């Protein structure tokens, strides 16, 4: 089972991202759960969302304390929140950042583990015209963890976004290509 924790800001669509991951995984024939951090949310405040993916029925309702993957949608969050908190050894941190690997590792307090970086804000601005990176970052996720098939994710995006789907899929595909993986 893979556990994913998403970090975003209220209104950026972290919950939607988590849902799209689960929808794609389930339609692919896997088992999955997606859930928000339960409770009231404020626009702009740091928020978390969660997803679990497994080959077998997921029999737990615990919170996710030790994720295998963290997916950070907003480039400013690592300065506010310790995003790598609880990340499993051997896990991967996927971040939206235009900084170099070295700079990001420093920002994460000397993080040594596997890292995936993409400038998702730039891609989102160019492809969608808005700095909302929730679909873009899914491209980075597909590249960083070899689990979800891109066509199922595209299908989920299409079902969710209707007219806006094409642009979102383009951003997602671009992020997949542009994501750099380190260590």
């Amino acid at each position, binding site marked *: 089972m893979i556990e994913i924790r998403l970090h975003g800001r209220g209104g950026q669509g972290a919950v939607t991202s*988590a*849902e799209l991951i*689960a*929808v794609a*995984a*389930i*339609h692919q024939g896997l*088992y*999955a*759960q*997606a*859930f*928000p951090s*339960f*409770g*009231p949310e404020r626009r702009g405040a740091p928020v978390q969302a969660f997803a679990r993916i497994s080959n077998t029925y*997921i*029999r*737990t*309702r*615990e*919170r996710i*304390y030790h994720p295998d993957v963290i997916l950070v949608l907003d480039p400013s969050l690592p300065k506010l929140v310790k995003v790598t908190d609880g990340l499993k050894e051997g896990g991967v941190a996927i971040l939206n950042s235009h900084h170099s690997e070295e700079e990001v590792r420093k920002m994460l307090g000397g993080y040594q583990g596997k890292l995936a970086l993409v400038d998702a804000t730039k891609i989102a601005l160019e492809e969608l015209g808005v700095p909302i990176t929730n679909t873009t970052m899914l491209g980075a996720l597909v590249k960083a963890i070899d689990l979800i098939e891109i066509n199922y994710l595209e299908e*989920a995006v299409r079902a969710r976004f209707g007219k806006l789907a094409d642009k979102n899929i383009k951003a997602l595909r671009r992020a997949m290509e542009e994501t750099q993986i380190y260590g």
Partner: protein
Amino acid sequence: MGKRVAKEVSIAVADAVAQCRVDVIAAYPITPQTHIVEHLSELVNNGELDAEFVTVESEHAALSVCIGASATGVRTFTSTAAQGLLFMYECLFIASALRLPIVMVVANRSVSAPISIWNDHGDIMTMRDAGWIQTFSENGQEAVDLVYHAYRVAEKAMLPVAVNLDGFIVTHVVEPIELLDQELVDRYIPPYRPKYKLDPKNPITVGAIGVPEIYTEARKALDVALENSYRTIVQAWKDFEKISGRKYQPVETYRMEDAEVGMVIMGSLTETAMNAVDKLREEGKKVGLLRFRLWRPFPYRDFLRAIGKVKSLVVVDRALSHGSTGGPVGIEIRSALYQSNKRPKIVNFVAGLAGRDVTVEDFIEMFEKGYTYMTKKAPFFYEIYGVKE
């Protein structure tokens, strides 16, 4: 077989209600029930569901509308949580005594004060004496299946049914769910044809006064109806298994065969507790789990059978009964055991209030307590697990 889809549980529950061809929905939004009724109002608004959605001013009105509508012989639905349930309280007893087959989904949430929107069973446990059939689900699939089951049972037993699912922990999760094909739903839940209904062409009186010479008899009739509904409930699960392949029982057990320490729990924490059982079994400890799928009528025979030869029972309540000797489930179980020959030690915990996480490690610790008291006198009262002193 129905199609396996990825859905937020609330949405799937609403879809199942729509599949049951409900005629009148009356509800007032309250977290964490909101998505259920929101989706139903969408279905009515866009013409996918031919039903009357009454946007009432309160939960008291919501259940009142359902009572009135149900008395005219149509299929009704409402849903609520916490303070909303408490607000409809007086109507709960009327719905059951008038024998109206209303179905209500309760997205379980703790009651105020302090204000909490998170999950526990503090709301539903207040209505355990209200004469409703009450069932509990542990995940999205079960919640959906229990909705279908509720309509079949309600209209056969002529009693209202409350289906419970844990707020947020289940309601707000996207997970794989299989909805039944419409054709099967229609077969499982045929059109509702009440024996009596409010009809100007054939007037009757519903809700008359019960003078002292008749009230006791009226309540006895309800009491017997609820007790007798047990058979209808079990039969409806058997019928459901035939069409869906999914099996349900009043008391569900997990690895209870040879268990010496058992745990009793209800709702979504069950799944996490199962993992604790597996871990302890790997260490050679004979532990098992049982949970009440059916809470009212209380399935005491199934319960006594299910506990086998356990030496101690760890009862994990998700609600308090202030000033009492245990949590609601703990009290019930002690009472059921008193007249029986089985006398396991009862170790009663109250845990997971207001959505506080209960982990595998926590369950293991509670099991350990069960072992501790296996050979010595168990405490008479209960322990609020993990409370900060």
